[in-house]
């Protein structure tokens, strides 16, 4: 069992209040950073830690901070992305609800490192309770002298604001978030320029996920090198996974990166196995936008290695036989779940959430949804699968922001791995509306790879 870095004190009564949080060692990283380290040294620690962005893309946080442009006389901003709306992901909400001061603490250290005098936490509009919790926490921190003018007498001043979001998934995309934060329609910007050069109000800006910012606290407390000792390879530290679906114990878990997926799924410490004694059919490992995998390919990579909960291992096999860590929204499907229905449901979400700026995503997401809806309701045809794959290819990579890709991947991967189930929905149309296809062979052991496989890409 790994050490918990973020959720260590989550069960302490009153940890959401400043006093209890402080008594458990909270805000030590602010004292250490502001009094003993220069901003550049803080950035250096984060670089050493190997921390990778927890919002989905997994971009090294220290490197992102290092890229921030620092022109004379121009403000810089740190913006926390708390718009968490990816289906299957609910870790940030959990963290903000129960231990809000951890985020505030991380924001202070991060803002200090980047030289920001004003920072924002952009919270998903629907999360009104969390917005109030954060505002209360900010007020408490301010009274205690950790926010506002001349923090702890160090001369560093920081104002921290909470901004309720615009109520759209797309506002979680970092440039759409900045537009929305500026009070405009949440349309993603065309990049370049990147936020590190011209972000909020045209000033250099870093956008980070809630969990990435919270992870800065243990990194500063223990040192980057210490943090990097946890995990495996380039996947360092701990990660919050929000596990949902047909599990015995769904919930938010903090794992050491590199934990075998089997242990995560079946051990009593984590998910405790599949609910109701059913068998696992498929897994979406990192939120709805990552490719879905059948049980067998999820447990083992195509080369027969046990899969681990790490950025590298989950994506082992690329799009052909792998998936992604994404945002850590782990969804397990048991044998009674219908992949066609689920794929339609995801497609419906992306159709609904496309901002509508660029034609492939605006029109293509709606098209895919309609075809999937037809398939699910027994009116599909055998050519629909190829059509879906083709439409998804026309969207993927041709759009302004990654929402287009996020809409294309679940559809393309579902058809890649579950094509027989889709075909069954056409060939047994009337049966398909009354019962599910079942587990089929999706949990069977993987066939041994050819001695010298030609296409392992």
């Amino acid at each position, binding site marked *: 069992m790994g050490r918990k870095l973020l959720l260590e004190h989550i069960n302490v009564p009153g940890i959401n209040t400043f006093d209890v949080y402080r008594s458990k060692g909270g805000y030590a990283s602010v004292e250490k950073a502001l009094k003993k380290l220069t901003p550049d040294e803080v950035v250096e620690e984060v670089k050493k830690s190997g921390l990778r962005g927890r919002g989905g893309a997994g971009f090294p946080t220290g490197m992102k901070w290092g890229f921030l442009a620092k022109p004379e006389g121009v403000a810089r901003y740190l913006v926390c992305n708390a718009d968490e709306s990816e289906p299957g992901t609910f870790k940030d909400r959990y963290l903000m609800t129960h231990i809000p001061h951890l985020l505030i603490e991380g924001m202070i250290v991060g803002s200090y490192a980047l030289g920001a005098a004003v920072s924002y936490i952009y919270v998903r509009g629907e999360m009104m309770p969390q917005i109030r919790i954060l505002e209360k926490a900010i007020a408490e921190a301010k009274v205690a002298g950790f926010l506002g003018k001349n923090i702890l007498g160090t001369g560093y001043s920081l104002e921290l604001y909470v901004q309720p979001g615009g109520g759209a998934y797309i506002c979680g995309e970092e440039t759409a978030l900045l537009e929305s934060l500026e009070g405009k329609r949440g349309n993603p910007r065309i990049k370049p320029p990147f936020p590190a050069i011209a972000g909020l109000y045209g000033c250099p800006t870093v956008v980070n996920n809630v969990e990435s910012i919270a992870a800065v606290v243990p990194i500063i407390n223990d040192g980057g090198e210490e943090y990097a000792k946890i995990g495996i390879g380039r996947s360092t530290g701990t990660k919050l996974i929000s596990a949902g679906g047909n599990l015995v114990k769904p919930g938010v878990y903090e794992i050491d990166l590199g934990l075998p997926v089997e242990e995560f799924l079946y051990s009593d410490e984590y998910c405790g196995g599949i609910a109701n004694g059913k068998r696992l059919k498929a897994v979406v490992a990192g939120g709805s936008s990552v490719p879905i995998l059948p049980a067998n390919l999820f447990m083992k990579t195509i080369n027969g290695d046990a899969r681990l909960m790490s950025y590298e291992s989950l994506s082992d096999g690329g799009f052909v036989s792998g998936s992604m860590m994404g945002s850590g929204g782990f969804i397990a499907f048991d044998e009674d779940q219908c992949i066609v229905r689920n794929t339609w449901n995801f497609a419906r979400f992306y159709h609904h*959430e*496309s901002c509508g700026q*660029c034609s492939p995503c*605006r029109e293509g997401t709606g098209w895919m949804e309609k075809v999937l809806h037809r398939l699910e309701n027994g009116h599909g045809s055998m050519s629909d699968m190829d059509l879906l794959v083709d*439409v998804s290819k026309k969207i993927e990579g041709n759009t302004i922001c990654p929402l287009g890709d996020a809409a294309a991947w679940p559809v393309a991967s579902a058809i890649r791995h579950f094509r027989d189930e889709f075909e069954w929905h056409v060939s047994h149309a009337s049966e398909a509306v009354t019962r599910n296809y079942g587990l089929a062979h999706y949990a069977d052991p993987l066939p041994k790879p050819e001695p010298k496989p030609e296409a392992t890409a």
Partner: protein
Amino acid sequence: MKVTIDGISVEVPDGTSILNAARIIGGDVVPPAMCYYSKLAGSGGKCRTCLVKVSKGSEKDPRPMPKLVASCRTNVMDGMEVQNLTSPEVIEARKGVVEMLLINHPLDCPVCDQAGECHLQDLGFEHGAVKTRYEFDRRTFNKIDIGDKIQLHMTRCILCYRCVYTADQITDHRIHGILNRGDHSEISTYIQAAVDNDFSGNVIDVCPVGALTDKTFRFKNRVWFTKPVDAHRDCDHEKCNGKVTLWYKGEDVIRVTARKDVYGEVEEFICNTCRFDKKKTADWVIEGPRKISHHSVISSNHYETLKPLPVVKTNPVLQEANKTQFERETRL
């Protein structure tokens, strides 16, 4: 800065976009552009028809770019090499974009005033497929009158945002832009409000399709039966210089527009008085017939398609990729 597009090199100043570099070369290497409008700041990047492949990033960093890029919003680097028609990938992606733009389009060209000068029509003709694979109901909206001169036919809109930028940059008092999200997005309210503005008529000219049309010209004629003539008048609006194109049917001026270049962009925006209220020859000083590109349906009465570039002619892969276009050419 030297940039090579489809094998043709050109020197351009720093900060030029790939699209504009291609326009300097001219001809078939120019990617189609449905949303970019050189006179509107911030436009472009949305329709994705101008996607091209950057096969060499620059002299310094020769790595190709991982994805296709929107040529209207990507600036050239010294030594960059770009593929437009010479990349099968680009042709395939563009075909996809055209198909996407058309799946919810009503295709009511026979009753649409824009037919003949519609960029979507041209685009579909040059880069699209013959048949659609879309088998669902198309999205529809009610027609909206924006004041007494302009009609918004949202069903035809391709959401290029040009009129939004026009309302924002050319007219005063922008109220709003786009309502709703995704494929329910709708151009709205601000235009209705902007109608009092002296320059609101320009949204008709920037609209690449028949979504914003001139009510004073509605159903009067097909554009290819009208005769364009350049003319000017001494306009007393301080921002309008009165340079227009008059569209004649017989002796009558049935429409006034700004002067448009080969890419359908106006040379200068004109005021509503010139556009809507001056429809007598006596109001104008006639300069002479408007030169219309011989590619245009307006001058030739039919569509002409691509001629194979020299590079395409010698390369079987590219010939294959461009096949449908050339076949159509020979059919005509």
